[in-house]
């Protein structure tokens, strides 16, 4: 049995445990490559039946437009129930990362939006595509990660998780975040996408795209909401994205890689880690841990 076979069997086992024991599970679907793998594994886990839970996207109104197209097409192709939630308060106040800053934008649209949606639909278990190799506090997190009724994570007081035996018991109002891809690395994910021919958002592949350079980061001119400085002119560059989020907060990398093997090759030869393109981790070393404690995925 190869390591990918083992990881696949583990993820399927985890998903089936949740469906057998949860009252109302949901899969958080971020439209990224990890979500694509998770969704593919869910199809395998419940075959020949359908995926027995909805998928939910927490939309921030600032996602790349290609992500939204891909999301809607995927849901239709696979026949899964798709829930899209946008924080109505954030929408009303016209939340804009260019004006309000990345940190506030993320707090309101992602963290608060997620908590609102989980409360609104009374989901007691939510699958997430996070991996332990992404970041230091994730490396410490259990596969079944318990949350209080206020959605808080207590990293110092996690339940022991023995063998592949998961304790999914909780009191009313409490919930569990479950990470079936915990033990996958970025390379495993890419390799699996390659082997299984899993569709992913085209933004991962290089193409000539209009970008502007800000503080050393290449930002895609995705729509007319991007405020251009006076002397700023979008330039066409061959770029792609290693990670997908809100377009104003996600830097592109210059690249010629337009096939999966080329992407993998580039990833293996590159010298910066995946999340570096994301502004959220930069503030302080423990910022992800803090965000997670507050309810971020």
């Amino acid at each position: 049995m190869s390591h990918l076979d083992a990881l696949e069997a583990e993820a399927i086992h985890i998903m089936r445990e949740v469906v057998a024991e949860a009252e109302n599970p949901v899969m958080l679907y971020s439209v990224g490559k990890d979500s694509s793998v998770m969704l593919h594994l869910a199809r395998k886990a419940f075959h020949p039946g359908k995926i027995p839970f909805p998928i939910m996207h927490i939309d921030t109104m600032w996602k790349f437009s290609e992500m939204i197209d891909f999301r809607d097409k995927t849901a239709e192709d696979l026949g899964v129930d798709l829930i899209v939630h946008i924080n109505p308060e954030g929408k009303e106040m016209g939340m804009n990362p260019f004006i309000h800053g990345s940190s506030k934008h993320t707090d309101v649209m992602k963290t608060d939006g997620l908590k609102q949606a989980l409360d609104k639909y009374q989901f007691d278990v939510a699958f997430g595509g996070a991996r332990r190799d992404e970041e230091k506090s994730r490396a410490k997190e259990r596969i079944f990660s318990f949350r209080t009724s206020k959605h808080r994570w207590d990293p110092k007081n996690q339940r022991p998780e023995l063998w592949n035996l998961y304790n999914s018991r909780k009191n009313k109002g409490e919930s569990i975040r479950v990470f079936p891809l915990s033990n996958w690395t970025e390379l495993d994910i890419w390799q699996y996408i390659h082997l299984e021919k899993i569709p992913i958002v085209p933004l991962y592949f290089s193409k000539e795209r209009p970008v502007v350079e800000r503080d050393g980061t290449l930002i895609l001119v995705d729509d007319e909401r991007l405020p251009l400085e006076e002397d700023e002119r979008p330039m066409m560059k061959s770029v792609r994205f290693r990670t997908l989020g809100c377009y104003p907060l996600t830097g592109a990398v210059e690249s010629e890689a337009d096939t999966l093997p080329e992407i993998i090759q580039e990833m293996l030869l590159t010298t910066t880690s995946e999340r570096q393109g994301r502004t959220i981790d930069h503030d302080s070393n423990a910022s992800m841990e803090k965000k997670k404690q507050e309810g971020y995925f």
Partner: protein
Amino acid sequence: MAHVSELISTDIDSYLKSHEEKSLLRFITCGSVDDGKSTLIGRMLYESQMLFDDQLSALKNDSKKLGTQGDEIDFALLVDGLAAEREQGITIDVAYRFFSTDKRKYIVADTPGHEEYTRNMATGASTADVAIILIDAKQGVLTQTRRHSFIVSMVGVKKVLLAVNKLDLVDYSEDVYRQIVSDYSDFAESALDIESITAVPISALLGDNVVERSENTPWYNGETIMQYLENIEVQNQRKQASFRMPVQWVNRPNPNFRGFSGLIASGETKVGDKVRLHPGGKESTIESIVTWEGELQQASAGQSVTITLNDEIDVSRGDIIATPTDPCGESDQFQSRILWMSADAMIPGRQYIFKSNTQSATLTLGKLKHRIEVNTLDHLPAKTLELNEIGVCNISLDKRIAYDSYDNNQTLGGFIVIDRLSNNTVGMGLIDFALRRSENIHWQKMDVSKESRAEQKSQTPKIIWFTGLSGSGKSSIANILEKKLQALGKHTITLDGDNMRHGLNRDLGFTAADRVENIRRVGEVAKLMVNSGLICITSFISPFESERKMARSLVSENEFIEVFIDTPLSVCEERDVKGLYAKARSGQIPNFTGISSPYEPPEKPEIRIDTTKLSAEAAANQIIEFILA
């Protein structure tokens, strides 16, 4: 050896092909605090070039700010991920790290060395194929080395690599190394059940014998740590064991398909094989093995599949599909080893939830046979287990389950203990063997029944269970209640603290464990009273919700009426009829409920009496109204 192989730039397709073939090895690093576990992992990641530039520059920054290695890189900071860990410079929880070589992908569990986090270390050990136990050459074999080794052996890790670390601090002395290896071997031979122990002299900080053979230890000819990990044969014992698949979920997408989904725990099976279904023992044959890729002819340990059978048999989650040539055992009572993982001590007699593979049951922990003192491996008498203590005890379940001993099958023999109120995982358990007596005790069937005895007395038997603080008014109200019931022609009995503690329970004190046993016995006696057709009034503080729940579970649903005498502590203390609160406050009575021992108010009592608003007489009337309604 790094993942940066020549092939990546020259022939990515061949590289990807080779990566597909890699096997997976899971290992843990353990040992005492400051033995250098995190440093070793950091070193391995560094040497296998799994660190990105930005991680390396962040690490260099952190090393200056928080590091303990002067101007050198402090590799431990790579793995200590929680803010509290980085601040305190210790590892609290197990961290999982990943790296790969041309041959294998590795999952490393870096486990904490502090005694108070032993439960997190056990979490890491439970999934490991190999354990690296580190020893500080300057310190030698320590208590925590023995504790971790014992747990490694207990959870069934069969291969141990003994890394004698910090050899640079003892001038790479062969004598020091030999002495430590010999000390450890003495301990391991007498106490542990480990197949192979391999020792390597290293310096994790400087990299000696981690990846490359070191010139500083010319007297050492064995493998380096990486060589050991690359070459170790992890016998696929699971594949060779008898076929077992716990059913996770029944897949019924349409009336024509009924499949049983699960991860094959051990052995292999193929289409047409005979299988036995536990519990119960019905037999059938495998009709098909369904996966998304298509049907398989055979499947083996580690695969997630969906099985259909040739017969219409009732199978549901928690059942085990097994081979009939070596079926599982079935029982409801076992001897087990337990590692306690909660700050609240284990209490024999209390009910918990048992979960093993996909089966759950109500669990009652029996009396401890003994506790194992890990330092000396002595068997000591014990009444409870505290956090991180290991003991042997009998357990009984409310139903028969399919099992194997843990030594034969980890999936079928391993279980967790869950607290019923907090839902926390509070213990790790390993089944040793089933107790025969559960097969031999049969309930005597009686012609005279509870119903006929109750009919004779023209009443519905019940337990009226008072709970509340000392001095809350339980006994006064119970006394009036019984008089009134008798006046109405009812047959009653009252159990209270005095008549129980002077007789049946006179061997019990007031520790939490004894309080639990006290209430367990009261519950059993009250049940006998109900069976005899009586209305049984019990008047005990009964401070813990779980024991009250247990008493409730002994009788039928409508037979248990919980009466919460809700008198605030301040009022009880002011009344202090027996002068007990004054004594408790001055420290003359230890473990006094409300003062030095907790009281858990009932969640949903049938009746709640507020004695600050209601007289004892009125309270008794309210109860009578309820039970005769």
